């Protein structure tokens, strides 16, 4: 096989593998990406029920209700709007009223957010960046208030 032919085979197979990879990435981008939203985004954007998203903000004071079988209901707020969240399972250690939280799940028809994971944060030093930004947007960010809220997603190494 000549050098030229060998190069053609090489380039051909490289392009094939690359094309497959690009196709995989594009499909994954369509199906496997989750957008972050604040309660105000959810209220304004008319997000389709059933599509996955992340909802972040503060756990509204006095909103946490615990039911049987580890059912929990609470509201996530950014000061302007609040969204009701329903979750079943263990809550992270630092889940508290008035503190930052990021939940992931889907909206149901009644406007309740069915979360299947709740990330509160491990260390009180930081605020989740998404939540801090969302709060800043609504003008509810207080520098030291932010410090007392927490960031580290529980269950992540980072």
């Amino acid at each position, binding site marked *: 096989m000549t050098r030229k032919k060998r190069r053609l085979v090489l380039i051909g197979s490289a392009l094939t593998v690359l094309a497959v*990879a690009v196709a995989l990435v594009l499909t994954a981008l369509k199906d496997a990406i989750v957008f972050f939203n604040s309660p105000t985004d959810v209220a304004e954007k008319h997000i389709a029920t059933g599509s996955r998203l992340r909802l972040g903000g503060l756990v509204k004071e006095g909103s946490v209700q615990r039911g049987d079988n580890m059912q929990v209901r609470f509201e996530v707020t950014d000061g302007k709007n609040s969204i009701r969240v329903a979750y079943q399972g263990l809550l992270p250690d630092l889940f508290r009223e008035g503190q930052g939280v990021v939940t992931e799940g889907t909206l149901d028809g009644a406007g309740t957010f069915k979360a299947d994971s709740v990330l509160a944060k491990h260390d009180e030093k930081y605020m989740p960046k998404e939540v801090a930004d969302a709060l800043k947007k609504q003008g509810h960010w207080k520098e030291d208030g932010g410090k007392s809220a927490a960031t580290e997603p529980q269950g992540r190494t980072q």
Partner: protein
Amino acid sequence: MIAELGHYALVLALGLALVQAVVPIYGARQNDPILMSVAGAAAVAQFLFVALAFGALVACYVTSDFSVTNVFENSHSAKPLIYKITGVWGNHEGSMLLWVLILSVFGALVALFGTNLPAKLKANVLAVQSWVAFAFYLFILTTSNPFLRMSPAPMEGRDLNPILQDPGLAIHPPLLYFGYVGFSISFSFAIAALIEGKIDAAWARWVRPWTLLAWMFLTAGIAMGSYWAYYTLGWGGWWFWDPVENASLMPWIAGTALLHSAVVMEKRNALKVWTILLAILAFSLSLVGTFLVRSGVLTSVHAFASDPARGVFILMILTLFIGGGLTLFAWRAPLLKQGGLFAPISREGALIFNNLLLLVACAAVFFGTLYPLALEALTGQKISVGAPFFNMTFGPLFAVLLVAVPFGPLLAWKRGDLLGVTQRLLGAAALGVIGIVVTFAVEGGGPVLVPFAFGLAIFVITGAVTDLIERTAFLKVPLGTAFARARGLPRSAWGTALAHIGLGVTLLGIVGETQLGTERIAELKPGQTISIRRYDLHFDDIVERRGPNYSEVAARFTVRRGGEVIGTMEPSKRSFPSRGSGTTESALMTRGVGQIYLSLGEANPDGSIAVRLYHKPLVLLIWLGAVVMVIGGGLSLSDRRLRIGAPKPARSKAVLQPAE
């Protein structure tokens, strides 16, 4: 006083680095052996001074000198001694100091053990190494100085983040850094070769042991980090496709590709340009990893503090070295001559295929890691790219690669016989198919992919064993002869087989843990029992205990299997008053290579406590596989030809190919 001594030592190291960065290169151009020999002495001296600086910081921590800001922020007098020491690198400044310490270790190693390197190459390599060192010393001294004092000195420190108060901190970061930073040697070799415009098979032989060493450390470091995350976070997960994890995975993939392409270059004098590019890429990805983790673009345990000045500085280092390296590559690489010819179906071809898939998989991880950052910077849109994305992209690419793994070592150089190799792999394939059928039969329903993944893992393992059997002609010749042959096999052949077996073992563990595991979450009161698989866990009572710098609430469980007591488990929650936060300590019980995993959630007012209970079959194989890979790497590293070094004279005229 000690802190000032450390600070001063670091400044001296900076000065030495500058000398080492300039003089040897000039010497190499002038062909002046004395100027060139400056490199070795400077590298060793640099190591001594950085070690002195590091030792000084350790001393500040051990003596709890809270007048040093860094110690005040990350230590506490009541902390156990081991965490006072490991706490040195449990923060941004200290971890950067560890980074440069390891960099200088590698520099000194090349200076001391690179005695058989050609003088010019050695001078250039050490000079390039010193450019990197210089940039990072400057970074530490200007933006992240660990030796700064504060006045008045506080009485007590703020303590280390409790989650880092774990033996894992003693092992994981040093291992990982040895891996990350080790690739700087491959990078320096590549740049030195480009500067000289000369590269040959001997070059590959010198680079390979360093790359292999770095790769072994990186493999061990990633595995250790994964196991640490697994037992410490209480969620039973061992890989989250988190950006910081990806930051360590990307150089690993590029390094793996580099190891394989360097083989082609060493044996066949082909793929030179490609190998150089990979060496630059592997270290570039290490730098990208350092940037992602240290710059504060990500919020995390690893990103200890975010200070924009640091991010910008690291970004500048990144641009300089990656940009400079690639520019030099684009300029000089065309001068390097192409090597030997080979057919697409051959060992070379297989190794190229390996490189292709590894790099594309690496690119997918790179894209998934950086896309959210780029998108947010450009549009303000916040997205999370999580496990599903990586499973859909990295997964299939790696699966294809794994199918090809057993074929590679069996193919002949230059022109291979795919049909013949397939025939020889029939046994392995048959075992794989049996694995598929058995899993189907045992599992019944369940995800279809599981049996195939098991079959693939078995194929990879038995395929590697097939290679060994073929080489020793085991069972074809008398047993004694086969053993003699086995002893006569180069250690690198054993290394290859072991590394590939390790890959299969890890895959077995991954499939077992993710697909066959079971999970239970419940709220229990003392006296109640929870069951998983055939294990019954009886919740005995709750005890309160005190540790050196924390208080702990532990739940005691007695584990029974078929009514028989097989042990106790004591998951607990610790709270650290100095930080006002706590950790969840899960309890693990190892059964064979599987584990039972128990961790605590919230305690309720009614006296019950939430627990998470997992049965994780085969889970230990994930990390055992990595250990097997590292052992394989070690065997390969001890191979005679890497120990003794490259053969010199006689043939060398024919092998060496000057660029011009």
